[in-house]
């Protein structure tokens, strides 16, 4: 490698960026679907259960939790810094493990279906 790697921020930023797009474009649709106001047949309990029983469905639902949660974690950290909270490492140690915990819980619940 010609020069040293200057920053490892891409590791947290890429999921953050992907999560931002997810949260802005797809999450509102997903939330709207859960209300049953649109496509009531496709979002009935039976249909949703069948979707979540399928491996591909589980993967999609996991994506819907993982990316926005990771986005929220990083955004909270950055916003805290913008508001003058200087304990950046402490904030990072709260928000990222928090996101990891929620992601693990998502896996646990999805596997129970």
């Amino acid at each position, binding site marked *: *490698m*010609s*020069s*040293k*790697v*200057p*920053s*490892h*921020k*891409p*590791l947290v*930023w*890429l999921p953050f*960026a992907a999560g931002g797009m997810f949260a802005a474009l797809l999450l509102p649709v997903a939330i709207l679907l859960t209300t049953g106001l649109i496509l009531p047949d496709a979002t009935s309990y039976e249909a949703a259960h069948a979707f979540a029983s399928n491996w591909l469905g589980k993967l999609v639902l996991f994506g819907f939790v993982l990316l926005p949660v990771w986005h929220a974690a990083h955004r909270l950290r*950055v*916003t805290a*810094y*913008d508001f*003058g909270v200087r304990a950046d490492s402490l904030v990072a140690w709260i928000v990222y493990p928090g996101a990891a915990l929620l992601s693990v819980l998502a896996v646990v619940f999805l596997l129970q279906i």
Partner: protein
Amino acid sequence: MTVQNRQIEVLRYDPERDETPRFETFTVPCKEEWVVLDALTYIKDELDPSLTFRWSCHMAVCGSCGMQVDNKPTLSCKAFVRDYGEKIRVEPLANFPIERDLVISQDDFMEKLQRGRPWIIPEQKREVEDGPYVQTPMQLDDIKEHTMCINCLLCYAACPVYALERDFVGPAALTLMYRYNADSRDAGWDERREVFAGHGGVWECSFVGACSDVCPKHVEPATAIQKGKMDSAVDYFTRFLMPGGGK
């Protein structure tokens, strides 16, 4: 021609006499078509010749006359007095040390700008007889908006990250670095990497977007920095994951 008296409240600071900056208010008979810079010129010509401020072109090209007008970073040559109230507060650009009155020290920005190597670093240097480095209109379009910067520093005065983080390279310098990185004639990515993507680089930006809001030339620094983050992320993973470091 309508003339209206306005109170121009100016921040004054003389490092040889003043302990701290103070405000001084002048009553200025402003013509309708005047900008804030005209009012300041009137004060200097007619009321107090010691008032110090930078200006040059009076047409939003030189980038010298940036100030806080009613607490917002603004080119004073572009700020019509008629768009403000009867009382207008004029201060030096925020986030910079004051040298005198409305003049700030640009040293920090100049040093960062130079570190960013904002010039074309070609893959292969051409001699004069080889002719110019050519570029298609489409290649120019990719970067054109980011080339319009006049170094007026309004974006630094508006940036909440620069206010808190003095090591942050900042909007204008990072935008220029992005502009050269993305230039089809340039091959300087490796040389700029450490400043661009290292400590104080694009990753410090929290994408508030205030830089793009105040930019008088629509350079869109926030967009350039976001695109720079994506390029840096791709660079990071390419170097780690690809055999031979992606080069």
